[in-house]
Structure formats: C-alpha cells, structure tokens
C-alpha cells in the first residue's frame, strides 16, 4: 500500500539524501539563470507569461528543498507541493531546449519523490497507486471484469470478423499487447479494434490475464518504489508468456 505518512522533516532529509545523485547536483549547480526555458513551458505561456511559471523556478525550488533538508517547514512544503505537482507536467520540453540540457522534468520528478516522503501526493494519484497494488491496474478493474471484458469483446469482434480471436495468456506468442486500464473500464471497443488490426495483419499476439496495464501513474506521482512495482508486473507477464515484444496501446 502507499505509505500514509505525514509532515516529517527527518524523512524529508532522508529522501533528499537518497535522491541526491551526480546529475541532479550538477544541474542544480550550473543553471546559469538565463531564462531561455521560459518560452518552452506551456504553463508559462498559458498563464499570461507569468514569470513565476518558468521551468527554472521549479529547479530553484527543488534546489531550496535540497538545501533545507530537515529544516523545512509546513509552509514551505505546501508551496513546494503546489509548484511541483500543479505547475509542471514533466513533459520535458524545457529539458530539450535548455542550452545546458538541464533536465527539469527529472528535477520535478525528484521533487515529487520528496513530497511522497511526506505523504503529500494528490488524492487521485494515491488512489491509482492503491489500485495498482490491489488489482494490478490503475482503475480498480478486477480480474473477473478483465477476463469478462476480453471475452465479450471477442464475441463482438467475431460478429464482424468470424474467426478472429483475442488470445489470452498464449505462451510463446510474438507480441504481448498491453492497454491503458481506461480501455476495459470505459472504452472496451478500443480493444476489439486493436484485435482487428492484429488479426488482419496476421500477427502472432496475445493479451495477458495479469500485468496488462501499461500506464504508470506511480511514476507520474514520483513514487518510484510503486513505479518499479508496476513496471515489474508487465515485465513478469512478458517473461512468463515468453513473448518477444511488448506492445503498448496508443
């Protein structure tokens, strides 16, 4: 389960120490404060060019957090939380166009990791992480629902394309096709349409009864432990089914 933690400067310091690495140190030190990242950020452009939104500000706040360590207070943390989750989508545009190649997205992700140590993660992201641990996917799709959905979609598919199938756990298939949990939950037709393509292309493919959700909102939340767990699920499925390739949904 996602750890329910509260404001805890000691843990914050531990998180800082754990997350300190050579790249991060270098990036936080060499930023020349040139401001060339401003125009690359959609938060900056969409907020009437509010200078507080430029990517370098996010780097500056993470640097502050790294310097404060256990000297942080709740007011700082609150402000930090809103910047790091609310004003950056980690799209990496600024990293791409920074003359020094300072990877602000990775810096933001590290900042989110610091928030995770304080249990400060947006509620909806926490829910998805809990769901990953409980059901192996982000949308609380149960094992039963998943298999039912695949079988139902197979029936629909066969009405249009007799003979087409949605193979489940076919060992030794070439491609393991994984989806976004949103598909079985809200748009199951997407799965049968993908199956149609696989069938017509003559692909040797399969879906998996477990480890089939290719989203990783735990990574987006900055909870790297959970993110590793989620990726491992897909990897395990791929190894168990001995597939050559994992395909992810559009």
């Amino acid at each position, binding site marked *: 389960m996602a750890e329910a933690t509260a404001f805890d400067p000691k843990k914050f310091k531990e998180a800082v120490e754990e997350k*300190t*690495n*050579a*790249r991060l*140190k*270098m*990036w936080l*030190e*060499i*930023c*020349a*404060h*040139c*401001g*060339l990242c*401003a*125009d*690359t950020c959609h938060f*900056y452009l969409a907020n009437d*060019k509010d*200078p*507080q939104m*430029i990517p*370098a*500000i996010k780097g*500056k706040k993470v640097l502050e957090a790294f310097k404060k360590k256990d000297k942080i207070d709740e007011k700082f943390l609150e402000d930090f939380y809103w910047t790091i989750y609310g004003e950056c989508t980690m799209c990496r545009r600024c*990293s*791409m*166009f*920074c*003359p*020094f*190649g*300072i*990877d602000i997205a990775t810096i933001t992700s590290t900042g989110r990791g610091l928030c995770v140590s304080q249990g400060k993660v947006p509620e909806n992201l926490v829910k998805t992480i809990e769901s990953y641990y409980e059901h192996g996917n982000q949308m609380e799709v149960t094992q039963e629902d998943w298999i039912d959905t695949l079988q139902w979609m197979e029936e629909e598919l066969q009405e249009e394309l007799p003979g087409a199938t949605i193979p489940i756990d076919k060992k030794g298939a070439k491609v393991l096709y994984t989806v976004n949990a949103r598909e079985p939950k809200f748009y199951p037709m997407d799965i049968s349409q993908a199956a149609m393509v696989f069938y017509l292309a003559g692909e040797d493919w399969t879906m998996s009864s477990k480890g089939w959700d290719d989203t990783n909102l735990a990574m987006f939340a900055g909870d790297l432990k959970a993110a590793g767990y989620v990726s491992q699920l897909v990897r395990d499925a791929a190894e168990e089914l001995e597939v050559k390739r994992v395909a992810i949904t559009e």
Partner: protein
Amino acid sequence: MRLYELLRGPLLWLAFGVFVGGMVVRVVLFFTLSTKKDKPIYRFFSWKWLGLSIFHWIVPLNETAKKNPVTTAVGFIFHFCLVVTPIFLLAHAVLWYESWQISWWSLPETTADYLALITIGCGIFLALRRIFLPYVRVVTTTADYLLLGVVLAPFVTGYLAYHQYFDYDTVLMLHIFFGELMLVVIPFTKLSHFLMFFFSRGITGMEFGRRSAPSW
C-alpha cells in the same frame, strides 16, 4: 612593486592550482557519485548521441537559437571573446615567454582591444537582460550579477591598463587580481559550466537519443 611580485608569483600559482585542482575534484566527484547513483548514464551510454547533442549546442544549430537569435548571437560572441582574448593577447604571450620561453600566435593589439570592448558590451547586454526581462529577473540572484562582474572585471581593467588610464600600476594589479579571482571562483560556482556543460548536454542528449529523439 612588492604586491605585484606576490600577485604575479605565488598567488597566480595558487589561482591556477585552485582552478585546475577544483575542476579535477569536481569531475572525480561526479564520476564516483554517478557510477553509484546515475545508472542510466552508463546503461544507455552512446558516443553518437552525446556528440550530436554537444555539437548542436556548441554551434547554434538548435530551436532555442532560432527562437532567440539576439541572445544567442550575443552569448556566442561573449563566450568566444572571453576565451580567445586572454589566450591570444600579445601582452600575455610576452609574459608566458618571459617565464617559460614558450610562445604561440597572438592577436594584433588593436583587434584584441576591440575584442575586449565587445566582451564588455556583451556582458552589459546580459546584465540588462537580467534587469529588464521579467522571466530572467525572476530567477536572477545577487550571485549572478557578482559573477558577471567578476568575469568582466579583468576585461575592464585590462582595457584600462592597455590604454594606461588612471594609475597604471594599480590598474595592472587589479587586473591580475580579478583574473585570479575569476579562476578561483570557477570550480565553486555556475561558471564551472565551462566544463560541466559537456557532461550535462551529453547526458541529456543520450537520454533523448535512446528514444531516438534529438534534443535540439
């Protein structure tokens, strides 16, 4: 001229020592820490993407340069003059020759004079940018102005010394002092980007490159 001897002798050695030693320590620390905690660098290491990334940013062949032509031009000229002027200045070459009997090509004196003025001009532009552009002002710290001052001071005093404005001895000693100060602060400040740029740009180039995406 006691002070001059001191500046020209032991302090110069000290400055070079701190500069070179400091940067060596920086690089060694980078490697010791990164081999433990930055596995992606080594797992996805690629000379191709490292080289391409550095190349596209060391000559301005990138989107940022296209979108900010003036800043790019000024920044480029600034860095060029910053490196070329002191190395190929005739007066410096003479000093090298006196001490070590080594010599290399040097710039005509008037050219060097202009290069110094251009450097100062570019520096002023960069300072004005910090003052007048809101998105630069917001990330600017006092250290940014101080460092710009430390970098420009040897050029200002060098220009004054060459033209023998004010008291030559004082200006000359200030010139040497500021030059040494600049060398000393490099390893401890953002000025270390003269070397770390290659690390940072290379790493991000590889990070994008392993997804076949160019980062320029």
